């Protein structure tokens, strides 16, 4: 039989090697909870579906409103959850949220060095890099080097403020509203607000010409 250097493309896709210790433990606990009638497999499936359905669009809507409505922005900075509730968004189950504003003089960026705390309700599932040891260890120690790797170079007189959200608070960055966006609708403005700009590693998108 002929030896192949690369895997045979016609082989069926193999399952990953066995479950890890923690995967086995989670499956065992879930099986017990279901067996005892405390929750159903459908409850678990629905929770995962709800989690995956969250997206940065919710956060973008909040930011766009803050850009067009100074009163809303003040409310957002003073009490983020209460302000967001006024948009008809259900915030009951959310962690306490703090909004911080980028200005020409101050640039904010968020990390969780201890794990990967993240405002999932507003931004959805965090990107892999946010959870990586590389980002978490380096952005607190060399923020400007990390921001540069994301393509953001800031003048040395701009104050970079790194928020390490290690505890019960979640942080949302309000990026600066891009120039030449005066005529845009709130919906079009929301289209300029990216996930990464709300973490603080990039500015909001420039409008298309």
């Amino acid at each position, binding site marked *: 039989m002929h030896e192949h250097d690369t895997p045979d493309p016609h082989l069926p896709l193999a399952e990953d090697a066995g479950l890890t210790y923690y995967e086995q433990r989670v499956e065992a606990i879930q099986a017990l909870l279901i067996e005892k009638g405390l929750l159903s497999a459908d409850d678990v499936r629905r929770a995962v579906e709800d989690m995956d359905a969250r997206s940065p669009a919710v956060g973008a809507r909040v930011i766009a409103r803050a850009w067009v409505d100074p009163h809303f922005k003040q409310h957002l900075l003073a009490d983020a959850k209460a302000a967001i509730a006024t948009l008809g968004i259900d915030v009951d189950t959310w962690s*306490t949220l*703090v909004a911080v504003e980028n200005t020409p003089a101050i640039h904010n960026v968020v990390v969780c*060095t*201890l794990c990967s705390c993240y405002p999932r309700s507003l931004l959805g599932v965090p990107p892999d890099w946010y959870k990586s040891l590389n980002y978490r260890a380096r952005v*607190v*120690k*060399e*923020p*400007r*080097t990390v921001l*540069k790797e994301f393509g953001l*170079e*800031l*003048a*040395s*007189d701009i*104050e*970079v*403020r*790194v*928020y*390490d*959200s*290690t*505890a*019960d*608070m979640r942080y949302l960055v309000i990026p600066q509203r891009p120039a030449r966006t005066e005529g845009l609708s709130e919906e079009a403005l929301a289209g300029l607000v990216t996930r990464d700009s709300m973490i603080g590693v990039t500015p909001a998108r420039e409008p298309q010409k």
Partner: protein
Amino acid sequence: MPYQPGDRVRIRVATPSGHYWTPTYIQGKVGIIEAVHGAFRNPETLSYGGDGRPKQTLYLVRFDQTHIWAHAESAASAPFCQNDRLLIDIYEHWLEPAPPRVSKE
């Protein structure tokens, strides 16, 4: 709530058994209370089957990057600059009062 915004605090140096919410890089450093977030159940007991009481006040504490890492440069290529800051949430039982800044002899 013994600390107010503007107060100088030192982060305690400790290695309690189990998980704790105060990274070692900030232990022993002196910062300024930026904001008071309110009282939360203590995750250090909450996460081990306890009820997290008494609640602990959670503070946002601000540090100069130059104080934490002690190697700032002014060039735009520096890892951080003179005015850059780090802000971190710390529970009250990790804080102790820091003496006011004294000018060096």
